[in-house]
């Protein structure tokens, strides 16, 4: 493919993406959030982020692993200009359509407001020119940036990221400022946007710091990576991280802590599912069932309101009972499906998850579980000296959540690097052979199911204590799917990956029911989830922070070649390509 064709193609892709975003109403909706006063809104930064990206990519040229791309700001700017202009022209199509025809019956968002948003309130003939021009200029900027020398380029992009981040995560920054002193939040306008002078100061400051300290961060991380796990450097870093984790919730406000509780809930479930899917390789699509067992079990045992059976136990006692129940549930699901593999297992567990939800809703069990009414007045976790800690005190509840996450991390970590973890890994790789070398796969599978179930039951028990009420709609298939997405995006089989995945997806975008840090995204959450999944599957199937085994699995060919070349160069070793003669 020639560079020119590549440029054209990128322009087309960018334009279609821009038009799509406009047509589904993203731009209008996101324009209500001002990032940097007075004109840069979230909607425009997403819309024109596309020409910036395609301009950059077009200037990079056709991907070629054997040659370094040519970096020339002027040439890049021209290529970017063309790409951005093409994208802008295509992005005009929905605007013209919406302006001339009334399509609101088919596409709700093709309305005058869309035209206004896309044309900067300038009306059609003039606004369209402005749209194409802006797109072209931004594209040129992308191409120009690519052509700059590395230090400048990295400095500018870091500065831009920081400004964008500080503006976007205003809620978190404001909470931190709140603690440090009221005066500091003058960087934001009353409408939560960054003041223009503040944006400039942050940008310049970050640029200066990043160009001055180039390479030092990388150097330091390398040093940490190579350091002995017991060295003072490692230990002090771990200590620092621990202190940060403990202190941070105290600095943050109610809303952010509420969100953190939600994130840790998904970290907990992600870690549980990670044992089942990531370590043992059993694709469980009904994982939410175990979560429901934990939540409803605790609800019935602790609430004074469930009609048929009200022991009103202490939360911790209920937790112990719920663990036993989860074990039984794990056995109950595990035993019949133990002979199934892959897709079949996924379908059966999917069905099981729904069965549990429908059972909870059924008339038959309504006396016990309250049917559609659910169970209310579930007390919080009883903690000595603090009375009951529930969802109304998220700043305390977060510590209980973190304690359970730590427990789950500990369990996963130890199980992973042990006899049991090895048997799971073997089973995941080749079940027949695992059986043939003496691993009881039935037992290993049940063990994985039960471990996962117990962790999910912990999450359920915490969930009901936090929310105070349980309804069946908190336990639909979507929850199972989203936990699985957290595990996949984070990195299957990787503890750190699951944590990062939950923070990125649940914390920033929002979980199945609650909004994340970016409240504006709530409506488009599932769309963005889908886009992230597709991107990850194409570009980084091993997840954000992959486990060693998993990335080996996905990059066998490459590392095989590397190894062959390594060996060819090694003295005294006969290089031997793997040929099968038998």
């Amino acid at each position, binding site marked *: 493919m020639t560079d020119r064709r590549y440029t054209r193609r990128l322009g087309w892709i960018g334009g279609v993406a821009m038009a799509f975003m406009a047509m589904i109403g993203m731009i209008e909706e996101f324009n209500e959030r001002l990032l940097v006063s007075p004109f840069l809104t979230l909607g425009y930064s997403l819309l024109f982020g596309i020409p910036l990206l395609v301009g950059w990519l077009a200037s990079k040229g056709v991907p070629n692993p054997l040659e370094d791309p040519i970096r020339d700001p002027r040439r890049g700017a021209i290529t970017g200009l063309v790409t951005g202009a093409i994208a802008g022209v295509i992005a005009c199509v929905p605007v013209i359509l919406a302006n001339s025809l009334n399509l609101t019956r088919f596409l709700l968002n093709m309305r005058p407001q869309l035209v206004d948003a896309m044309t900067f309130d300038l009306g059609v003939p003039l606004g369209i020119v402005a749209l194409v021009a802006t797109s072209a200029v931004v594209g040129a900027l992308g191409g120009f940036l690519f052509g700059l020398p590395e230090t400048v380029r990295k400095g500018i992009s870091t500065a831009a990221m920081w400004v964008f981040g500080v503006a976007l995560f205003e809620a978190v920054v404001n909470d931190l400022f709140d603690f440090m002193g009221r005066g500091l939040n003058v960087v934001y306008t009353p409408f939560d946007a960054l003041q223009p002078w503040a944006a400039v100061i942050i940008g310049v400051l970050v640029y200066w710091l990043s160009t001055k300290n180039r390479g030092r961060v990388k150097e330091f991380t390398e040093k940490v990576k190579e350091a002995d796990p017991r060295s003072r450097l490692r230990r002090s870093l771990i200590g620092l991280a621990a202190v940060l984790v403990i202190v941070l919730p105290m600095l943050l406000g109610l809303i952010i802590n509420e969100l953190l509780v939600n994130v840790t809930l998904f970290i907990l479930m992600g870690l549980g599912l990670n044992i089942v899917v990531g370590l043992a390789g059993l694709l469980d699509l009904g994982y939410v069932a175990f979560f429901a067992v934990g939540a409803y079990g605790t609800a019935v045992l602790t609430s004074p309101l469930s009609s048929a059976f009200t022991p009103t136990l202490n939360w911790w006692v209920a937790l112990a009972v719920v663990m036993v129940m989860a074990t039984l549930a794990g056995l109950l699901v595990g035993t019949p499906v133990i002979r199934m593999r892959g897709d079949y297992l996924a379908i059966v567990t999917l069905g099981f998850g729904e069965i549990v939800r429908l059972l909870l809703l059924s008339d038959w069990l309504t006396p016990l579980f309250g049917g559609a009414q659910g169970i209310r007045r579930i007390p919080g976790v009883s903690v000595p000296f603090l009375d009951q800690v529930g969802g109304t005190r998220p700043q305390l509840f977060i510590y209980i959540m973190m304690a359970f996450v730590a427990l789950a991390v500990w369990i996963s970590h130890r199980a992973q690097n042990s006899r049991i973890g090895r048997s799971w890994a073997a089973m995941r790789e080749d079940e027949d052979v695992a059986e043939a070398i003496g691993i009881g796969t039935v037992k290993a599978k049940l063990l994985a199911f039960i471990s996962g179930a117990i962790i999910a039951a912990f999450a359920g028990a915490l969930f009901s204590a936090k929310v105070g009420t349980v309804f069946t709609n908190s336990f639909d298939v979507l929850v199972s799917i989203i936990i699985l997405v957290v595990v996949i995006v984070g990195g299957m089989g990787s503890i750190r990956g699951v944590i990062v995945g939950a923070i990125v997806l649940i914390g920033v975008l929002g979980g199945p029911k609650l909004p994340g840090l970016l409240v504006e995204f709530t409506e488009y959450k599932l769309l963005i989830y889908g886009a992230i999944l597709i991107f990850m599957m194409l570009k980084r199937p091993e997840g954000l922070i992959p486990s060693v085994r998993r990335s080996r699995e996905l990059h066998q060919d490459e590392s095989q070649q590397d190894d062959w070349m390594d060996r060819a160069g090694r003295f005294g070793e006969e290089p031997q390509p*793997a040929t099968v003669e038998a």
Partner: protein
Amino acid sequence: MALLEITGLRKAFGGVLALGGVDFHVNENEIVSVIGPNGAGKTSFFNVISGMFPPDEGQIVFDGDNIGHHAPNEITRRGIARTFQTVRLFPNLTVLENVKVGQHCRTRAGMWSTILRTKKQRAEELMIEEKAKEILGFFGTRLSGYRYDQPAFALSYANRRRLEISRALATEPKLLLLDEPTAGMNPRETGELTEQIGQLREARGLAIVVIEHDMKVVQNVSDRVVVLDHGIKIAEGTYDEVSTNESVIEAYLGRPAGSTDE
């Protein structure tokens, strides 16, 4: 009393009779080769012994117990280990992990002791590691040192075969079933492995059954040779006896030159 005593073993897959009533035995510390043309039922024979397929008829008595319908992992636990004709390692586990996982049925640590990391569990992990290194040491430096942490898929073909044998040895078998252990190896490696099979018997007191196509290997390692054809045992005896047997020559080694039209 023989270590493994098989009588009247039959196995059919649909209409295809893979094994048509085979009698077979292996004594302690004996090396027996099973040979036969392609499709003679040699690998099916191994699959039935190791429990991957249950037999239709017949008895498999190992160490005094009938193991005919036990699960593969139970059979391994009782002391029969095998390798596969198409090497089947756990490709993404490291060399060391492949051998460690082989010791599964000889170790005990459960979920609780793993989570609590009890003294016993730590001692067991250490033992597993030491033993894995010792087993790999049998092949000299080929699978040791920097190789420990390499993923199994990165190994050369011959090393994969060696690792598969190591993994089988890790299960502490009394009887080792090797399915074409030298397939795909060059003559030098074949010679080395032939010698090592003999050493395995000496050093570990194993009984070994080998399926092999390379007649030189068969001649060098085996005390006794069993010939299968179309699922039926057609001859048994020392290499010299078998290699001069008329029906064997016809079925397997080929007709003498000149007996065909060309």
